[in-house]
């Protein structure tokens, strides 16, 4: 058996070889799963829904139902409105959802489907009473990545549900595309600060449920619609991520907008924006924001978590100092991981993403004071480019989703699995990345991976580290 072919030289390619990104309807579906009682429906071919389901299910190990309007050849020629109606009827009768989020695809976008108009026809048809809330997001797969789909959906949800209401003692929290465990942890942090937060999206239960005595067609959990309606009345927003702006095809009048910036513009809600809190620096910033927003000191629980994390930095720093890391994935995850690795003395040799915002390099330099300038940043890249770069870098470890496993195997170095997807292990949905708490888990993993590698390749017994 031969090895998977790897080029021993670097040359430019027009094609994408082992994509380090997914298409935007996938991100949209995950965000839609974060609303209570909401079912995603993909307006396109059956395959889109099935592939995306399979991909999401394999990570979260949960039933994930995504409906499809099942385009056929006739639909493609004559338009999808009737299919959309049939699909909605069937989804409503089968799932009795509170809302249905309809995402488009390359197919429906290219034939020029006007889904907002179709939905408005359906809403205006007097024979349709008791309709669930219907909203739609434009997610052609030829634009951007799954993150654009995710962020566009969060923005669209806000626009769709927000109502003019008297101001409320609430804070909007936009965690971004993080693990269910992360969402659970951060929600708890908000509670401990006594902040009444509306978290969007909140798939901490819907994509990580306990076992069921009976089968739920629509899993429990998610942000209640009644809360979404109040989002415009909050007194502050906390938004995680530097790459949350949506810049899809002339939408929003060509402006780049995130859900939180839209709320700032339209409702005057102050947005507190920071990168994903991974590592001491970015966690400090995050906790300071919460302190400021709540007017309260950081609770002792988190002061202790911070202290323990710092304590472990002392215990573990030597084993990782100067180690060369390759980081890949979504831009926000890559940025936060770089910031974390930079502060603990790891040299990030390569930071790669399939996305292409054009801002990654600048952000990395800003958030990585130690080695930021020497980090090679590759945007719009793929796994084979990463693989070929590794040949020159000779990294000590890789950190990213499970799809880079073959590269780690190629160079016989550890892969620290983070983010999405983790298809080859259980527990991807339970990986903690964020806060002092999540950072602790990551730090221990990184240090132990380096020790284990040394131990496995050493004549010394290593009964002690």
């Amino acid at each position, binding site marked *: 058996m031969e090895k998977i072919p790897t080029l021993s030289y670097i040359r430019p390619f027009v*094609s994408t070889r*082992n994509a380090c990104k997914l298409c935007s309807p996938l991100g949209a579906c995950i965000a839609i799963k974060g609303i209570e009682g909401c079912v995603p429906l993909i307006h396109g071919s059956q395959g889109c829904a099935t592939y995306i389901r399979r991909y999401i299910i394999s990570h979260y190990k949960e039933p994930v139902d995504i409906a499809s309007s099942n385009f056929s050849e006739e639909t493609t020629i004559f338009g999808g409105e009737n299919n959309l109606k049939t699909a909605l009827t069937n989804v409503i009768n089968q799932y009795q959802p509170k809302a249905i989020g309809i995402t488009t695809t*390359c197919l429906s976008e290219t034939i020029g489907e006007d889904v907002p108009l179709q939905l408005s026809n359906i809403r205006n*048809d007097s024979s349709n009473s008791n*309709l669930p809330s219907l909203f739609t997001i434009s997610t*052609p797969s030829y*634009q951007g990545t799954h993150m654009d789909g995710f962020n566009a959906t969060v923005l669209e949800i806000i626009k769709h549900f927000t109502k003019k209401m008297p101001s409320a003692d609430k804070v909007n929290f936009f965690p971004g595309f993080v693990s269910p465990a992360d969402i659970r942890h951060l929600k708890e942090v908000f509670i401990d600060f006594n902040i009444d937060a509306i978290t969007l999206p909140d798939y901490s239960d819907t994509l990580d449920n306990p*076992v069921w005595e009976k089968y739920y067609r629509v899993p429990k959990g998610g942000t209640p619609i009644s809360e979404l309606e109040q989002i415009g009345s909050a007194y502050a927003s906390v938004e995680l991520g530097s790459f949350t702006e949506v810049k899809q095809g002339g939408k929003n009048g060509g402006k780049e907008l995130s859900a939180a910036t839209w709320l700032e513009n339209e409702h005057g809600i102050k947005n507190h924006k920071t990168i994903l809190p991974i590592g001491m620096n970015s966690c400090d910033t995050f906790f300071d924001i919460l302190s400021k927003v709540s007017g309260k000191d950081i609770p002792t629980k988190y002061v202790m978590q911070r202290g323990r994390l710092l304590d472990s930095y002392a215990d573990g720093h030597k084993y990782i100092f100067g180690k060369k890391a390759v980081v890949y994935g979504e831009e926000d995850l890559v940025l936060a991981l770089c910031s974390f690795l930079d502060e603990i003395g790891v040299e990030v040799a390569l930071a790669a993403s399939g996305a292409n915002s054009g801002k990654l390099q600048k952000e990395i330099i800003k958030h990585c004071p130690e080695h930021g300038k020497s980090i090679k940043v590759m945007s719009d890249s793929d796994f084979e480019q990463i693989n070929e770069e590794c040949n020159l870098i000779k990294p000590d470890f890789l950190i990213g989703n499970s799809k880079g496993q073959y590269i780690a195997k190629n160079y016989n170095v550890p892969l620290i699995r983070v983010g999405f997807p983790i298809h080859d292990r259980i527990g991807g949905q339970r990986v903690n990345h964020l806060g002092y708490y999540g950072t602790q888990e990551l730090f221990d993993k990184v240090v132990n991976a380096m020790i284990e590698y040394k131990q496995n390749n050493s004549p010394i017994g290593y009964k002690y580290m």
Partner: protein
Amino acid sequence: MHIDHTTMEKIIKERSTQVHTIGTSAHDLDCEKKSLAGSVSQRACVFCGSRVVLYPIADALHLIHGPIGCAAYTWDIRGALSSGPQLHRLSFSTDLRERDVIFGGEPKLYTALTELIEAYKPKAAFVYSTCIVGIIGDDVDAICRRVSAEQNLDILPVMSEGFKGTKKDGYKAACDALAKLVGTDNEFQAPPFSINILGDFNLAGELWMLKEYYEKIGVNIITCLTGDGRIDEIRQAHKASLNVVQCSGSMMHLANEMKEKYGIPSIKVSYFGIEDMADALYEVARFFKNDEMLQQARDLVSEEIKTLLPALAPFKEKLQGKKAAIYVGGAFKAISLVKALRLIGMETVMVGSQTGNKDDYNLLKKLCNEGTIIVDDSNPNELSEFVKEKGVDLFIGGVKERPIAYKLGIGFCDHNHERKEALAGFEGMLNFANEVYASVTSPVWKFFKR
């Protein structure tokens, strides 16, 4: 648009003809229909059908012409092993962007194809059309012909636009592409008793086990379509005396075409379970009307069974009377699974498939006990209802069915193309029993309220 909030329908009305309970339903099972919009079918699309069938051809370049999703979701999708090259395990895409959609994707396809052939030196290339290619009107054929002439390489367009039918139409598009390769090597002289294996994908090395059995009884395999597949072997496939077809849904079209064009007859077999595995060997020996071969097959089977049956006995003892639900891609596999389960004492109470045809379902009706639910093109809602209603101990299915079973505290056996354990052949039967046993009798279920 009729919206009914009062009745919690177990099954969408339009789907009721695709569900049959043996002994109680008067109607024939309806199948080979397009999936209903909004029904969360477990099926995929035309492209998926083509992609999974051609994927195991290991020395070919597989280039997916479309936006990135179609390539990303099918990267290294099957556990199909290759004894040599591993080019099939890379996922190549033209990764079409908005610009390409507006101005056409042909220039990008041309460059992508050319650069990849130069870099990876494949034996041939398959170019898959996805939904959008059908809409923007790229002339994929013309680009393939042009690059083919320039690079002196066979480049086979696969017309697999997702919306142009069901997964089955994708199988056909794949067969059409293969048919262009078959018969292009006339130098080759086939040894006597040569066959092709159609519809095995060498998941977890299953083909290698089958190959060994066939070689032991004196049968030579020219090529397998497509498990551990090689372009040059496929070119010689027309020299075989017989096509032995498994997973008939995917490959029957090619078998029929080879019958028409080269006069090669075909037989349908299955390699799952002792009975069907043994029959697969006997049928081939009978086809060659060779007594010695038939005797060798009998010897082989009795030799295998001598160790296998005692090895299965303890599993059967523990699994006796347990109930199973089956939902897989092709119904032919479901038929074998019903028999294999019986062999280890288990009864099938629900069985269904994504793409079965009337014959398959009629066979299932004969094979299963009264009260068994038979279902075509099902969905998570129905499947969860059926397994609850029937109180099953085991669900056999693929990735999308797994969480349904686990959420309800039911054992699960992965019999989809992502499986890591060889389940075909005699050895596979033992693995199958072991896997079923491990899941059904695990003590963890004791914590679940059943």
